[in-house]
C-alpha cells in the first residue's frame, strides 16, 4: 500500500492549523465545559454522595474527576462526528473531483481524514487533561512517572480508536449527504442520545433497563470505561458506586472499539467506492 493518504492528511492538518480560530475554539470549548459544568455539578453531587459511606481504605473520587473522563469523551465524540464535514465541503465545492480523478485509491481519502481527525482528537485530549489537572481533576493519583506515561498512552489508544470509528462514520455520512444542513441534522440527532445514554455524566447502574441496554451498545461507554481505568484506576468509588474494572474487561472494551472502527471503515469504503462526483 502506498502512502498517498499522507497527502490527504497533510492538507487537512495544514487547514487545521491555518484556521487559528477553529483550532482555538476546539481546544477551549471542552475546557470551558469541564470548568463550568464540572464545577457546578461537582458541588451538587458532593452533597448527595457525602451520605453514602465509602469503606475505609478505598479510593473515592470527586465528581469532577469522574466527569473529567466524560468531558474527554464528549469532545472526542463531537470532534470526530464533525471530522468528515470537510469532505462534504470538498464535494460541494468541486474539490473532490481532483482527488477522485487522480490515481490515488479512494480508501486513502478515508484513511487520511481518519488520521488527521485522530491527531486533532489527541491534541484536544492532551490539552484537556492538562487543563483538568490544573482545575482539580484528580487523574493519575499516586502514579509513578512510568505508570502515568503508560496511563496516558492507554487513554490516547482508546481515544484514537474510538475517534477513528466515528471519523469513518462521519466520512461516510458526509459523502452521502448533499448539504451541510442535512449532515448537521444527522449529527445532532445522533450526538445527544449517544452522549446521554452513556456513562459520561453519571453511572449507568442507576439507569432504567432500556437505557442501560442502550448504553451497553454505545461505543462511548466503552471508551469512557477505558479512560477511567487508566486515569483513575481499576477499583474506586464515585457517587457512592463501587467501580471495579479488570484488565480483561478493559481489553474487551478496547476490542469492541476496534471492531466498531473496522465496521465503520467498511461502511465508509463502500460509500466511497460507489460515490460518483462530477
Amino acid at each position, binding site marked *: 500500500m502506498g502512502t498517498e493518504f499522507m497527502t490527504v492528511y497533510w492538507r487537512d492538518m495544514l487547514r487545521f492549523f491555518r484556521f487559528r480560530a477553529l483550532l482555538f475554539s476546539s481546544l477551549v470549548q471542552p475546557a470551558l465545559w469541564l470548568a463550568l459544568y464540572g464545577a457546578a455539578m461537582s458541588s451538587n453531587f458532593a452533597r448527595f454522595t457525602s451520605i453514602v459511606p465509602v469503606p475505609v481504605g478505598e479510593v473515592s473520587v470527586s465528581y469532577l474527576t469522574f466527569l473529567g473522563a466524560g468531558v474527554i469523551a464528549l469532545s472526542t465524540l463531537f470532534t470526530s462526528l464533525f471530522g468528515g464535514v470537510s469532505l462534504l465541503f470538498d464535494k460541494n*465545492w468541486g474539490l473532490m473531483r481532483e482527488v477522485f480523478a487522480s490515481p490515488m485509491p479512494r480508501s486513502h481519502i478515508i484513511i487520511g481524514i481518519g488520521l488527521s481527525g485522530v491527531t486533532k482528537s489527541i491534541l484536544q485530549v492532551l490539552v484537556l487533561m492538562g487543563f483538568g489537572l490544573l482545575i482539580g481533576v484528580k487523574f493519575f493519583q499516586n502514579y509513578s512517572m512510568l505508570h502515568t506515561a503508560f496511563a496516558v498512552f492507554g487513554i490516547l489508544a482508546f481515544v484514537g480508536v474510538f475517534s477513528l470509528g466515528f471519523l469513518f462514520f462521519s466520512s461516510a455520512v458526509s459523502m452521502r449527504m448533499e448539504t451541510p444542513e442535512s449532515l448537521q441534522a444527522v449529527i445532532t440527532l445522533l450526538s445527544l442520545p449517544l452522549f446521554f445514554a452513556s456513562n459520561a455524566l453519571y453511572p449507568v447502574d442507576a439507569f432504567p433497563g432500556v437505557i442501560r441496554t442502550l448504553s451497553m451498545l454505545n461505543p462511548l461507554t466503552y471508551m469512557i470505561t477505558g479512560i477511567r481505568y487508566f486515569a483513575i484506576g481499576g477499583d474506586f468509588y464515585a457517587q457512592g458506586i463501587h467501580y471495579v474494572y479488570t484488565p480483561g474487561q478493559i481489553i474487551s472494551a478496547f476490542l469492541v472499539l476496534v471492531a466498531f472502527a473496522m465496521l465503520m471503515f467498511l461502511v465508509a469504503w463502500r460509500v466511497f467506492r460507489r460515490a460518483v462526483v462530477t
Partner: protein
Amino acid sequence: MVENIIEVKNLKHSYGDFLAVDDVCFSVKEGEIFAFLGPNGAGKSTVINILITLLPMQKGTVRIAGYDLATQQEKIRGSIGIVFQDETLDRDLTVWETLEFHGRLYSLPRSMRRQRIDEMIHLVELDDKRNVRTRHLSGGMKRRLEIARGLMTQPKVLFLDEPTLSLDTQTRMRLWDYIKKVNEAGTTIFLTTHYMDEADLVSDWINIIDHGKIIASGTSLELKNALGRDMIYLETSDDEAALRLLRTMEMVKEVNRSTRGLAVTITTDGAHCLPIIIARLRDEGIGVISVNLKKPTLDDVFVHYTGRELRSAGAERMTSRMLVKGGR
C-alpha cells in the same frame, strides 16, 4: 503515422430514462486540439466526465493513451490532466501548496515535484503569487493555476471542460495563448466549449454535439465550406440588369432581392467568386456601389444541422467586408 490518442466507440450514457449520450463515436489524433462543441445540456460534460473516469461508463469502448477505460482506469488517470468546469481550488491553500498537493496525489517524487512546481508557476506567470492563497487570485489567475495543475504531471492529454467560462474577453484570449503554447509543446488538448468563436479559433478538429449525438465533425473550414452558403450582398446601379446577369452565372446558386440591392448565394468559396462577379458586372456596364461578403460562421453550421440557434450564439461575424466604388 499519427496515432489516435483517444478512441471512443459506441459510447452511450443515460440518467434514468434520459439518454444523455447516444451512440457517440470519435477519435482524437495525438498532438491536436480537439473541440467538443454544443449547447448546454448537449452531452459534452457527460462525455468528458466518462473520459476522465469520474462517471462510470455504461456502454461502449474507450481507449485513452493506449489504455482501456473499462479495465485500466488507474493507468488512464495517471496519463491525463484535467481542468474542470467551474473552479476546483482550495481557497485556503496557496498557489504553491495547491500544486504540491496535486503532485503528491499523483505520487510524483519529491525532487521532481518541486522542480515541476517551479516550472509550472513560471509557465503560467504566477511567480509573484507563489505564496498567495488562491482566494486572493483573480478569475484568470485561478484558471491559469488550474491549467498549471493539470499540466504538472506531464499528461499525454489535457482535458479542458469549458475552460473560459465566465472570464472576460481579454483573459480568454490570453488563456488560449497558453493553451496553444502547451499544445505546441506536444500535449494533446481535448476541450469542450459552447463558444463558437473559440472552437473556431483554436481547434484542429471540431465535433458538434447536440442531444447526445455527434451531428457534424471536421475542421472549422470544412464544416463551414460544407454548408456552401457564402453570401454576397451587392448594391448596383442597375439591380434589374445585375439580377438577370447573375442568374446566368454558373457559380451563382441563387439571387434574391434584399432590402437594399441583391443577396447572392454562391456555390463555392465566396472569396474567389467575388472578383469574378465584380469584373463581369463592370464588363456589362453595371456600376457596383457596395459589396459585402459573408462567410458562414460556426453558428450557421450549428443552425444548419440542428435547425435552431445556439443559445449563446455570438453576433454575426463578417470575415470580409469591402466597399468598392463603382462608376462608369
